[in-house]
């Protein structure tokens, strides 16, 4: 059963539990690999996670001159292979979201691998496991389809990533989910 990371941006409270949990994944060397931003801190407390969207045709991998970025059979775009990465940072520049991070001491890129140790066996990644608000969820295709129907937005932008960098394995629901909700009374 194929499951995907699903992001409900409107739910984020900025607790950064996803970042703390990222360090707990076996292959992550206790470094977190994603971002949470305050959207407009002088005005309100809206925050949003910026996670690797695991593009189907990822710019990071395309731009890598050393073929250090492999794509797992599940679709997860993996972190740079230590033995191949030459530290050129092309990937960081190529990624439209600026996801790959760079370790200047080791001269090595590292990025979200969707907790491949977990997700290859159908276990949710750490970020989606702990997220207290369901901003990050680990859902089946059917569950994602139901979300799409339930929130029925009319702006045609249900997945943000469509316009930015082709098809992604991660699905994103833009802020505004409540617009499409019918009130109970």
């Amino acid at each position, binding site marked *: 059963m194929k499951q995907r990371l699903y992001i409900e941006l409107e739910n984020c409270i900025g607790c*950064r539990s996803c970042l*703390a949990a990222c360090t707990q994944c076996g292959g992550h060397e206790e470094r977190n690999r994603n971002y949470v931003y305050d959207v407009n801190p002088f005005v309100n*407390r809206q925050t949003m996670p910026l996670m690797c969207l695991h593009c189907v045709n990822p710019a990071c991998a395309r731009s890598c001159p050393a073929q250090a970025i492999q794509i797992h059979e599940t679709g997860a775009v993996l972190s740079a292979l230590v033995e191949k990465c030459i530290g050129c940072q092309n990937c960081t520049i190529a990624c439209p979201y600026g996801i790959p991070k760079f370790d200047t001491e080791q001269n090595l890129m590292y990025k979200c691998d969707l907790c491949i140790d977990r997700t290859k066996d159908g276990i949710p990644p750490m970020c989606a496991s702990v997220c207290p608000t369901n901003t990050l969820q680990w859902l089946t295709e059917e569950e994602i389809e139901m979300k799409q129907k339930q929130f029925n937005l009319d702006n045609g932008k249900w997945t943000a990533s469509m316009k930015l960098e082709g098809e992604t394995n991660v699905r994103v629901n833009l802020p505004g989910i409540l617009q499409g909700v019918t009130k*109970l009374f």
Partner: protein
Amino acid sequence: MQKDKSGKIENVVHPNEKLVKTHCSYCGMQCGMNLRVNTVSNKIVGVEPRYDWPVTLGKMCPKGVTAYQQTNHSDRLLKPLIRDDASLKGTKEGFREASWEEAYDLITTKFKELQTNYGKNSLSVYSGVSMTNEKCYLTGKFARVGLQTRYIDYNGRFCMSSAAGGFLRSFGVDRGSTLPWTDIHETDCIFMAGSNTAECHPTSMFRVWAVQERGGYLIVVDPRETPIARRADVHLDIKPGTDLALANGILNLLIQNNYTDEHFIKNHTNGFEETKELVKLFTPEYTSEITGVDPEKIIRAAELYGKAPNAIVMFARGIEQQVKGVDNVSGYTNMALITGKIGRPKSGVATLTGQGNGQGGREHGQKADALPGYRKIANPEHVKEVSAFWGIDPSEMPKPGVSAYEMFGLMEEKTIRGLYLLCSNPAVSAPNLNYVRKVMKELDFMVCADFYLSESCEFADVVLPTTTWSEDEGTVTNLEGRIIKINKAQEPVGESKPDWQIQIELAERLGRGKYFSHLKTARDVADEFRGASKGGYADYFGATWDKIDKQDGVFWPCKSEDDPGTPHMFLDKKFYHPDGKAKICALPYRPPAEEPDEVYPLRLTTGRVVYHYLSGNQTRRIKFLNDMCPEPYVEVHPEKAMEYGIEHDEIIRLYTRRGQAFYKVKITEAIRKDTVFVPYSFGHDESINLLTIDALDPISRMPEFKACAAQIEKLEIKKVL
């Protein structure tokens, strides 16, 4: 909501590791977690979600995710510390490592000396509720039977005592939530007052958001547009310290617009007519005048709560830490009682308990006026029951003591000369800190038990190293009233010992061994404690460790081995007052103890940030959390900042009649223009409690942390912190 996948998700177990299922060390949510333990070193090395815990489904906030880092932290106290030079009190200086025997000898000598010279009551115990029921229970027994003093109280006076007082008055029983948390996402309307839920109880949020996703409503009462208020259907942006007027105003609208349940009121409550008369005064306009909330918003909130088929009224310290905290609790609880939205699934009233064991810790006898099972020391029958159980003569039971903050008053006048402090950090968490710190410094003798050298340890003569939550076992009662099991994941670090063991060993040395020496393990304490609670209304007798494990926790009351416990309260519409009815309370409005004036024109309020817990003694030492929020700040509305000519990140002096501190300004529109906010989890010169007021609620003795008058001074010469 992400569906409950209980049992369907397997955990990852890394090579040479095992998982120990337990719960978080921090707030009342008590999120389920698995601690990762290395099977070679037998040390805790990490955390793995506990997907099958029904309340939190594996979810954790950043404090929970990093909680494991406390255990083997380099700041852990490994041996007892003694300070011979009392002139160094109030600093970190002058401590030397000592053996347990030397520390015990010194404590025994000093305690005996004080009690011989000044009487039994010259000693005091100041405790906390971030520890197991077993420890809380034993601390009460240690004070009353071991030390034979009347002066024991606990940090719940700064946390849950107003909720307790309000619930006791309204329902005749104080269980923090009348329904399990697993009902929340299925209700139709949440009325949330004075709770920064997203930061203080983050793992409640997926259920709160689910209500809105189903088309239900969220109403939030808060002076700040907190992350939960940001998405509320109605945000009542109230002036700090005016909640009772809002509660009365909404009550009035519910009555005027016929949202009342006449049948429920008639059969199951008292006090309606009197209350109806009193709240007539609170028209939307009058309520708006006091609270600063737009009348239209008050009308809309009352309409939504009134119309909702099911609704839950929830609140937290924002309404409780006021001089009328108890009245605020009863005031908001009135909403549920007049509409009959209580005593059934998906409807009810709940407080969001601050500390891990804020519920259980207040029930079993470490409160100045209480004995195990929520019995009262003022009730001779209760004293007789507990005395018989402990094997003492009822005449030996000390009288009721005084509340936590009032103990400092008795220390100042030298009625209390010695202090045994555990599981709390009043040098940061008490109000009016200049006074509290001075008094602690002048104590004849002070012992502090903690696992880190807290700011309060700096006032001690002897510091005893205790275990963290992960090095001992026992039960905790979470914010639902669900008794759960904390499991031991590794052996204590260094020479640290669990609090119960320290108290037993001290009692033995004080010649009181016959009441304590039979307790050899945490389980022995647990079994005695269950027996002590038997027959009280917080009856834990049937909540055995086996049953807790089998049922995913047991809700009290649970009176016998075959009683499954009580997830929903009042399903039979029977309340705990003698006539079985709940009390609708007529509550005249009172303003905060200190209102803004020309000299101090701002309203100062305080609270938590998501990265820190209570006084910050634990979380400030965790790198991830401290990196995210390394220092306090003062939130100011941009218009107010313009008036003072101050900018974002500029350092200003914030002061009240009691004290001052220097903070960086954080400009945000997400706060009322007349209000400033400072997080309270910081020590020494950074403590906002240097400024807060020590006005106490007359019933709960809760200080008014949430509202006092303050002023900002722009500094002539730029200050660097």
